[in-house]
């Protein structure tokens, strides 16, 4: 284009190549840490959201709605600039000190304010969406499932854990996978709080040797590749949908689900 010769060697070898590899791995680390956190927090939020007690339910709704309806970038900035400084100074010093055991290949520090803010921010944001997807899966189940379990003597939590949740998980697996993939893509915004992940390193190369096109192309390809691989792994790991699926949702129900799926930034 415009007589500029493409030079992929300029971004795939030497220092830029090392940066890209390091950034790509960092994206993977923060995606894994964020996903684990998101899964744990989603279960807790779902527990609050569908608790028998109304005040507890309200707390669940409030937390979920706050994190769903604010940009993740603002959340990152909050955790990094505000919340981190509220920690006790001994904890902050411990986190900010270099620890040899917290360095993963290639030279990626995972005990740092940047990594912790990013993983925690991604985890909480995504958990709010996961909890709502799970709740939608629960709501889509016929009432008879719950009534049958209660009549067999199961309590609220036992019904949920043994009867309802496994089916809800199977039925809403695909939207859940979409949320984990979103988490991976949103990790790119952690570059705004200086986490040295893929996007950060791509911009690094841009200012280092001006191979802008090549750096963007490699970055784009790596995100697409990671998305494909992660999507395949999660889809295969997932439970198979049950055969006694609920009736096809009506158009308004289908539309209502789409409203809940707006998990960008």
């Amino acid at each position, binding site marked *: 284009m415009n007589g500029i010769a493409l030079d992929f060697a300029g971004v795939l070898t030497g220092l830029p190549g090392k940066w890209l590899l390091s950034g790509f791995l960092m994206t993977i680390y923060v995606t894994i840490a964020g996903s684990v956190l998101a899964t744990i927090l989603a279960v807790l939020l779902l527990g609050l959201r569908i608790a028998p007690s109304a005040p507890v339910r309200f707390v669940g709704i409030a937390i979920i709605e706050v994190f769903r309806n604010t940009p993740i970038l603002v959340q990152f*900035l909050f955790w990094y*600039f*505000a919340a981190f400084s509220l920690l006790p100074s001994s904890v902050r010093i411990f986190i900010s000190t270099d620890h040899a055991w917290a360095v993963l290949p290639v030279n990626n520090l995972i005990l740092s304010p940047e990594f912790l803010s990013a993983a925690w921010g991604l985890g909480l944001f995504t958990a709010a969406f996961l909890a709502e997807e799970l709740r939608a899966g629960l709501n889509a189940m016929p009432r008879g499932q719950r009534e049958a379990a209660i009549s067999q003597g199961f309590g609220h939590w036992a019904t949920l854990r043994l009867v309802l949740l496994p089916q809800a998980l199977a039925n809403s697996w695909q939207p859940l996978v979409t949320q984990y993939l979103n988490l991976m893509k949103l990790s790119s915004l952690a570059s705004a709080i200086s986490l040295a992940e893929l996007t950060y390193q791509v911009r690094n190369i841009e200012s280092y040797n001006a191979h802008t096109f090549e750096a963007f192309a490699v970055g784009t390809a790596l995100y697409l590749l990671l998305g494909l691989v992660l999507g395949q792994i999660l889809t295969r790991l997932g439970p198979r949908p049950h055969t006694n699926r609920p009736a096809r949702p009506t158009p308004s129900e289908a539309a209502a689900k789409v409203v809940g799926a707006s998990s960008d930034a």
Partner: protein
Amino acid sequence: MPDFSVIIDNLPYFLWGRAFDGEPGGLLLTLIMALEAGVLSLILGVLMALAAWLFGGWTRRILFAWADFIRGIPLIFVIFWLYFLIPALFRTDLPDTLTVVLALAWFTSAAVMYSTLAGIEALSRGQEEAGVSAGFSRLEVLLYVLLPQAVPNILPSLAGVLISLIKDTSLAFIVNVPELTTVAGQVNNRTQIYATEIFIFTGAVYFVLCGLISLSAQYYQKRTQPAG
């Protein structure tokens, strides 16, 4: 103790930036960008959905592949690409704000296409067949029979798209376009010690904005589908 005087002192800057000097910023710029990108992506997305429905086959496959590609990469890369491609292809720089608006519109149009197409295809096939047998062309069936009926089903999902879009305007922070998040970052850099107050306030503004849209969508759904 939180000290929200930093918000009061900078409130005009948070709300409209330097609008009186001809440079809108803060919340005002967030709203302007969301509105511009929203209108553009609505036009583009609905046109893509109509094309996918009318022509089917390869047109549909290419549009879907295109939309999946856009949705498969982080939005920040869509912004980077436009920053790079517009000057390279057209030999001219666009204002930063416009570049970000175009990137948001491009990205969001994919979601609009999906929502619109889902709304049209959720209608029963009898609608299309009745229209065709009444002598309408397929384009006429689409515009006069299907689309009007699909709108009530599409609107709630478009509300979701709009909420995403408003949150996505915050990415302008990364390229320093002075909308709400960027302005919050600037005030934070300048004052240093009020990060908690500044980012809670900023989050609250987005929350109110997105919450209002979400509530109106729920109200609309309840009103139009009392039996649902």
